């Protein structure tokens, strides 16, 4: 008897009572629904119901700070965010711009790093360890450190700029540079994720095409362009979509470092909606923004699910 069968035999012989009796038998027959039932209940209670409530709330006008009851106003909130609120429109543009910025930065850097590190070298384990640190560090701590590093007069960021001969700038303290400074934090934090995903993709590449290309006399660059990139594309696309979903939702870092300032320069949809809901208690209006954001993120996710199915992993 193999050890595994041995385990199975000993554990089962003593416990075959549970299937007897009416309740036990019923539970056994419906196990495939009983097992996930608590999770399904929780998902419905803490996810589905709140989403439905938000959609309903988005059709109301209601200030949580006042004593008046919610008033049904149909699609008026949506009309306002679509055409009547320049601040929301600016927030949308900012959110998309921020997302594109960090995606481009993280993809280019992450893939470049993956290509560089895709070999055997001393310190490979250390590299992987270092790469995960920014992704798991507490956002509040990261935000705090960057607040201090970005300080225009005392911060180490400007000192380092002057050391390499550049002129200092105001980072998150100026409305011209604040969004870029925040994007830099995001790039710092999440480039390693793209790198690790791309590294995993590179590790699974087959050797044969390269050997064939080598025999045919193709240059390394051509081999990279015509073999590596196309084969790596599924991994990169998945990485980008994951990051796109999270970048659209970025809240912690922005709220902790700038709270949307200076002069609304970093007010993305998330920040605007948060302030509408919890500073002005304008719940109906904030809900309509939540639904809009939710729709966009779900759209990106549907692409992700589709890609996932076609790339078979």
């Amino acid at each position, binding site marked *: 008897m193999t050890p595994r069968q041995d385990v199975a035999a000993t554990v089962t012989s003593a416990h075959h009572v549970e299937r007897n009796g009416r309740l036990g038998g019923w539970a056994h027959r419906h196990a495939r629904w009983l097992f996930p039932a608590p999770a399904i209940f929780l998902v419905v209670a803490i996810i589905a119901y709140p989403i439905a409530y938000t959609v309903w709330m988005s059709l109301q006008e209601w200030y949580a700070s006042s004593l008046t009851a919610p008033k049904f106003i149909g699609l008026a909130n949506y009309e306002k965010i679509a055409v009547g609120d320049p601040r929301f429109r600016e927030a949308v543009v900012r959110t998309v711009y921020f997302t594109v910025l960090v995606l481009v930065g993280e993809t280019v850097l992450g893939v470049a790093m993956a290509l560089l590190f895709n070999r055997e070298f001393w310190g490979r384990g250390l590299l992987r360890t270092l790469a995960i640190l920014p992704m798991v560090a507490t956002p509040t701590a990261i935000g705090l450190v960057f607040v201090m590093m970005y300080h225009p007069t005392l911060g180490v960021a400007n000192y380092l700029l002057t050391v390499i001969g550049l002129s200092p700038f105001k980072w998150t303290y100026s409305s011209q540079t604040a969004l870029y400074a925040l994007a830099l934090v995001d790039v710092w934090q999440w480039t390693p994720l793209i790198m690790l995903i791309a590294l995993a993709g590179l590790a699974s590449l087959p050797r044969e095409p390269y050997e064939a290309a080598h025999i045919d006399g193709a240059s390394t660059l051509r081999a990279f362009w015509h073999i590596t990139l196309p084969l790596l594309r599924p991994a990169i696309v998945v990485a980008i979509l994951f990051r796109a979903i999270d970048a659209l939702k970025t809240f912690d870092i922005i709220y902790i470092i700038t709270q949307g300032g200076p002069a609304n320069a970093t007010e993305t949809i998330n920040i605007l909606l948060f302030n509408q809901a919890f500073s002005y208690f304008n719940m109906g209006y904030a809900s309509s923004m939540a639904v809009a954001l939710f729709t966009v993120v779900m759209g990106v996710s549907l692409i992700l*699910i589709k890609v996932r199915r076609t790339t078979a992993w």
Partner: protein
Amino acid sequence: MVMRGWRRRWLGTAGFYALAVLFMLPTVFVFYWMVTLSIKPQVEATAYPPSFVRFSVTTAGYREVFTKYPFLLYTWNSLVVAVGCTGLGLAVGLPAAYSIARWRQRRLALAILVARIIPGISYLIPWYIFFRNLRMVDTYGALILTHLIVGLPIIIWVMIGFFEDVPADLEDAALIDGCSYFGTFWRVALPLVKPGVMATAILSFVFSWNNFLFSVILAGRQTRTLPIAVFNMISYEEINWGTLAAAATLITLPVLVLALLVQRHIVSGLTFGAVKQ
């Protein structure tokens, strides 16, 4: 010729390591800067130009964090919420993950993925209204339940992978011998995936501990967790950088240590099994 080949290779290796250091420097530097600021006396923490290696060491920042603020209470709050969220998440998530893996419940798996995808901020308005009506704002219960949004999907998705690796023959053998599905799950599958349970428990703990968005609204005076407490310190300690850095180090160090224990599973946890290492 031999000499030149050798020199070329040496230069190549040196160049590689130079690039490697260049790429990894920002990662290391931010953490290095946080820790060194936390042990610098105030004058040196805000000195310009800053000192990178030569500075005097003090524990004043750390002492101040504990004496000026109820930091132990905040730590306790964070612990209660993270442990509660992880415990509840495992109790609910393990059977669900087992069931998804065993009966290939793809749709259920996708529904749980949706929970991870939806912007957290879009749950916040209804939750705030519910918990306010139930007078549950500023209770551990509200925080634990909401943190489950972060913890549960990770637990389920990472555990699906582990349960799928349990050989089906083994479970079938147990079933044929008269064991119930519950018995098979509890006594055959679960002991085999113990390392996975440890890893997911740590992941869920880390993400609950780090959570900012839900706690900033639903935690109050009594239940304020560390990320919120430290965020509030920014306005008070604007220029007291040693204290700020000490607080930042204190909240993130435990998480970094825990994450290192499960580093093999981090990427798979963050990408929901899309990438296996």
